């Protein structure tokens, strides 16, 4: 008897919760993304069914982000919180905890085999490279994870999310094939680039580019005189012409270094944050397109 009553209560609750979520379905699903690139991906997957709030916006260094009360409020109001993981945004977990967030968290990089940064001078041990989105094929996994996370919070939207993710995955694969073809046209010995912040490890590995950087993976490490000297020697010896700065770091060291080595600094690359709406990297795909076009143009100048 009591058993049946319990069953009945549970059933009614299930039905009720189903009804409630269906009633919610007409409203937009509130989602919070930790930084601008994820915000773009969530918007792509969620389409018209979600309302995305991005915490670390365009041109903002997500490594150094300090959340404000409005951010905690946004997280609390959200039903899905999308983070990159791989220790990219250590503040996100703390924010969710302190805000008392109870909803689901999607770790977008889940299932990706992370690269480790080689233990180089200044780094005591090998670090995991969190910038996994720099390989478009990893982003196929990102959008699949996001679609699954959104579907969990909004089951009735699942087919839409799946379809959006699949369509985007197709775009990513097309882009990857194009990029591969574009770079295969450049001789492997030419594919050498100097950047200010080695956030492009995944990109370099995917397209067979050698990236030389005078700083470690974190923006706050400082190079040694020996490292800079070797870099200048290498630029001169191999006559590397492709030198780039990245959108948020101090450009002076790399500008000065390339001046000493007698080369010109190329266009700004985007690694950890999108540009504003009018910039060349207003969405993830535009960012990748911009970076690869610039890199290819620079590398063609190499002997």
């Amino acid at each position, binding site marked *: 008897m009591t058993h049946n009553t319990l069953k009945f209560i549970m059933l009614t609750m299930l039905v009720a919760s189903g009804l409630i979520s269906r009633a919610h379905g007409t409203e937009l699903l509130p989602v919070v993304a930790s930084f601008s690139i994820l915000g773009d991906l969530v918007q792509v997957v969620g389409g018209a069914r979600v309302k995305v709030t991005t915490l670390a916006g365009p041109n903002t260094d997500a490594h150094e982000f300090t959340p404000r009360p409005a951010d905690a409020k946004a997280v609390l109001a959200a039903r899905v919180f999308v983070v990159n993981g791989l220790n990219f945004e250590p503040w996100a977990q703390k924010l969710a905890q302190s805000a008392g967030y109870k909803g689901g968290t999607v770790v977008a990089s889940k299932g990706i085999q992370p690269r480790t940064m080689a233990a180089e001078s200044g780094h005591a041990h090998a670090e995991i490279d969190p910038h996994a989105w720099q390989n478009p094929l990893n982003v196929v996994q990102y959008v699949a994870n996001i679609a699954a996370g959104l579907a969990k919070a909004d089951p009735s939207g699942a087919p839409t999310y799946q379809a959006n993710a699949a369509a985007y995955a197709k775009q990513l694969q097309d882009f990857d094939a194009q990029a591969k073809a574009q770079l295969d046209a450049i001789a492997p010995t030419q594919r050498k680039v100097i950047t200010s912040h080695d956030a492009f490890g995944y990109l370099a590995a995917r397209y067979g580019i050698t990236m030389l950087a005078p700083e470690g993976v974190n*923006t706050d490490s400082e190079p040694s005189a020996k490292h800079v000297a070797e870099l200048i020697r290498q630029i001169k010896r191999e006559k590397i012409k492709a030198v780039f700065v990245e959108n*948020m770091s101090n450009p*002076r*060291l790399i500008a000065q*270094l390339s001046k*000493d080595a007698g080369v010109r600094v190329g266009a700004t690359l985007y690694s950890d944050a999108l540009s504003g709406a009018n910039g060349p990297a207003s969405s993830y795909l535009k960012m990748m397109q911009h970076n690869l076009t610039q890199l290819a143009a620079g590398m063609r100048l190499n002997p």
Partner: protein
Amino acid sequence: MSDLYDLLVGPFAEFAFMRRALVATLALAMSAAPLGVFLTLRRMSLLGDALSHAVLPGVALAFMLFGLSLPAMALGGVAAGLVVAALAGVISRATALKEDASLAALYLVALALGVTLISRQGSQIDLLHILFGSALGVDEPGLLLVAGVASVSVVALAALYRGLVLETFDPLFLAAAHTGRASRPWVWQQSFLMLVVINLVAGFQTLGTLMAVGLMMIPAVSARLWHESLAAQLLNASAQAAAAGMSGLLLSYHLDTPSGPTIIGCAGALYALSLLLSPGGWLPRILKRPHRVA
């Protein structure tokens, strides 16, 4: 012989960035280290650190008005630093608070103001990270800035020297001696604070916080252990700062260590040696102490 050349001269001969780092460091050693001696005498050894935060509101305001322009942000930083230091000086004259206490309160307020301004802007970039330089990234304008500030401040310090010494050691005498005359004691104090601010801010922007504050303070602190006379302390501080800069750069080159921290580490090693060996240090004291016979 050629080994010695490779060890000591080669790196500077081959690389322009090493030469620029050396010249900037030597310029800062000449002007900032003596100012550091005066700061320790006035019990304001921690002014440099405070000031590295106090520049933030000026930098943020310049960023809001002119965007990511380094000269504008640099000028904003100087202005904010001058305002904070000048206010601290005025408060110490007008109230019972000492310079260091009023400075502590002011720099925290300035830091808070700076963070608020940046947050209002929406986009959160680490402005100071972009503005502040590093020893190996010294560019031509940065070099000119540091060299210019150093030249001005060495001459200004010479001109201020008498008044500043009196103001530091015996402010009451200075006040009494100047009663009824045009020049006022606060002129010395304010000019000195201004010199410190422009030296530090030029140092932040060219070499970074650690280098600017470290080269100003560590040699000054250890120089005080060596001599009784102030003039000798000033010279010793400059010499130690220059030695630390030169050896730090060379070590960073040969041992593959980050330059700024290595230079400051060398200054620290000189400090440790001074603590042990100088007349005011530990060993001479132990040796001089008469043995007690029971």
